[in-house]
């Protein structure tokens, strides 16, 4: 038999409480997940093979890092910017934001040196420019290559399979665990109908459950792999 409070309809005026934190976190996780899930990026059907792209990336990043020649650095900067100029605006943001953030971080790190030794500013700016263009190139590679193609490329380069396996599984589980967190936060959001005096406890609960789920999932996955003949030799897609 239903209790009386469940039968009676009640008028409810929610007490004031700042609940924006959960919604904002949900939106951020959702956006990151969407980006990871639809990681088709710019990859074209007849794109350059991932292994060549990977080689090219490593070579260009190395060249950018070790070059002492200002012209080479400027040429790299110009080339990358010219290439990006043909990209749609929404994709540009995902390339430029991390590059700008990394450059800003470099500026902050160099700030004391720039203030104390102004004569070295030129060299500091060169390093900052190198950081910017390197992060841009890594982002372009990331944006134009699917995860599974990256792991296949690493395999072709004879990178140890345990490293590739760890990378592959980490990427897959970031999405899975992100989905778990997102669902838990959605549920928390739907049931947050008033003033939560234990916000940190709730968020702690979400983190705790996610941790337990990750342990459980990793164990289940390993067992499932063993059942399917996994012998510690990982073959990527």
């Amino acid at each position, binding site marked *: *038999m*239903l*209790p009386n*409070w*469940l*039968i*009676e*309809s*009640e008028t*409810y*005026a*929610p*007490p*004031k*409480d*700042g*609940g*924006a934190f959960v919604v904002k976190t949900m939106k951020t996780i959702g956006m990151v997940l969407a980006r990871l899930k*639809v990681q088709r990026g710019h990859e074209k059907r007849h794109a350059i093979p991932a292994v060549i792209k990977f080689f090219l990336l490593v070579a260009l990043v190395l060249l950018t890092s070790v070059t002492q020649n200002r012209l080479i650095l400027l040429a790299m900067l110009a080339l990358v910017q010219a290439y990006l100029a043909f990209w749609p605006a929404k994709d540009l943001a995902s390339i430029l934001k991390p590059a700008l953030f990394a450059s800003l971080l470099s500026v902050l790190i160099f700030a004391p040196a720039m203030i104390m030794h102004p004569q070295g500013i030129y060299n500091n700016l060169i390093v900052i420019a190198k950081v910017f263009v390197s992060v841009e190139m890594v982002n372009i590679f990331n944006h134009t290559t699917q995860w599974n193609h990256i792991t296949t490329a690493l395999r072709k380069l004879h990178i140890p399979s345990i490293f590739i396996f760890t990378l592959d599984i980490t990427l897959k589980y970031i999405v899975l665990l992100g989905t*778990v967190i997102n*669902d*838990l936060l*959605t*549920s*928390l*959001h*739907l*049931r*947050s*109908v*008033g*003033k*939560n*005096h*234990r916000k940190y406890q*709730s968020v702690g*609960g*979400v983190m*705790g*459950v996610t941790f*337990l*789920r990750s342990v459980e999932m990793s164990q289940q996955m390993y067992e499932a792999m063993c059942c399917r003949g996994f012998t510690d030799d990982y073959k990527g897609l």
Partner: protein
Amino acid sequence: MSLLELKQIEFSYEKDETAVLSDFSLAIEAGQCVLVLGENGAGKSTLFRILNGLSFAQSGTYHFDGILIDERYLKNNRNAKQFHKRIGYLFQNPDVMLFNATVYDEIAFGPRQMGLSDEEVDRRVLDSLSLMEIESLRQKAPYHLSGGQKKKVALAAVLSLNPDVLILDEPFAGLDKKSEQWLLQLLKDLKAAGKTLVIATHADEKFQEIADTSIIMGEKGTRESI
């Protein structure tokens, strides 16, 4: 006036993708029990997200009790809380609903937020535990319960808010025959108490006793028949 009313909803997750819901309309009266049927990927979960104010249609309108539910309305914290209090949502997977340390805390989460007195919170929790026949689980950690027990705790957590509408996604998933019978009886009682029920299921024959109407979600989420 219908309690829940969707008019000519168009929804797709990405701008360039095919619409999940296309020209979709639905009206549910207060106290009705509506079954939502359809194959996987037909748009049932999307429909539930819209009904719960988690996603918003690109075009068309959603009215709840005469109020237009859109992003702007739910941006106001007070409106959102009032709306979520009136609609209870039971996820298909109860795991994603349980984040508290004990079953007691899980069920008390909603009533505590509503600002009810400790005695009232305690009464609601104990009544819910008794209603679900899970009194013995009171101090257990929800995470370590069986699938059926988790479902009962999740349902108790939703019911403790005393919502007007209950949206249930595959409520029989993970339940044994006995628990199915018990849940069906509970849903009958809830309907008799005037609650509006919206149930997504593949086992529509089991709900025939309580269902007033059913909608079949077809390709692109278009309603095919009533």
